[in-house]
C-alpha cells in the first residue's frame, strides 16, 4: 500500500510510548499496533484527530504517500 503510517516516527520524536499514546487516543493497543505496522485499511477522521492532538502534529506528519515502483511510470 503506498500510504505509509509514520506514527512510530512521531512517537519517537515526542518520546511517547505505545501505551501512553493508546490511552491518550483512547484506542486499544491491538488497534494501535495494526496502525503502526501498516496493516490498517482505513483510519477514521476522529482517530486521526486524536492522534494529531496527542502527538501535537499535522495529519501529513503521520501519513505519507510513497509511489509504488513500476506504477504510473
Amino acid at each position, binding site marked *: 500500500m503506498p500510504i505509509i503510517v509514520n506514527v512510530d516516527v512521531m512517537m519517537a520524536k515526542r518520546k511517547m510510548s505505545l501505551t501512553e499514546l493508546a490511552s491518550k487516543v483512547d*484506542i486499544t493497543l491491538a*488497534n*494501535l499496533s*495494526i*496502525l503502526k505496522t501498516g*496493516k*490498517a*485499511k*482505513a*483510519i*477514521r477522521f476522529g*482517530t486521526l484527530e486524536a492522534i494529531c492532538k496527542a502527538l501535537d502534529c499535522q495529519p501529513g506528519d503521520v501519513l505519507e504517500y510513497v509511489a509504488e515502483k513500476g506504477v504510473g511510470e
Partner: protein
Amino acid sequence: MKAKEIIVSPKVLRYTFLALTAGGCLMLFLNLSSYFGITSDGPFIRGYVSTQGDYGPTVQPLSDGNGSYKIFNFGERKLVLLDFSNLPSFMQFRHMFYILCQKMVWFLAIIVMYQMYRIFRNLDRKVMFRDENTRRIRLIALAVLLYPIMGFLAEVQFKAIVSQLPGHTLQLSSIPILDQEIVYGAILSLVIFALADVFRSGTQLQQEQDLTI
C-alpha cells in the same frame, strides 16, 4: 400489538445439526454392516429401479360427458432387494461400486449436516463473516450438486446389476426417473454458491471494518 418474534437460537440449531450428523454416521454404519451381513441374516443389496411405461396416454371420458382426461404412464420406481447366499457372490466389483455410489449419497448428506453444525457453532460464537464459513457454504453447495448425481449413478449401476440377473421379468427403463432431481440439485447448488459469494463479500467488508482504526 407487535407479534412476538420466534427466534431459533444458533445453539439449538448447532446441537440439532450435531445430532443429525451423529445420527447419520450411525445409520450409515448400521446400513453398511447390514449390507455385509454383519447385523442381518446375510449379505444383500437393495435399490430402486425404474420400469418402462407404455408412454401412450389412456383416455378416460368424464362421467358427465363434458370432456375427458388422459393418463400418461412413464414407468414407476420399484424397490428391489437382492439376497446373496454367500459372501464371495456378494463381493463383486459391480456390487461394491453400487454400494459406494449409494453410500456416497449418505456421506454427502452427512458432510452437509456437519458443515451446517460448524457454521452454527461459529454463529453461536459470534464468528460470522469469516473465510472459513464461506468455504463451508461452498462445500455444502458442491455436496448438494453431487447428491442427485451420485443417486443417479447408483440407480444406473443398480439397473445394470438387476438387468444381469438370470430370469428376471422386470421391464427396465433405460434412464432412471431421476433427471428432475439433478436439475433441482443444480439450481439449489447455484443458489447456495451465490449465497457463498454474498458471504465472501460480507467477509471482505468485515475485514475492512476490523482494519479500520
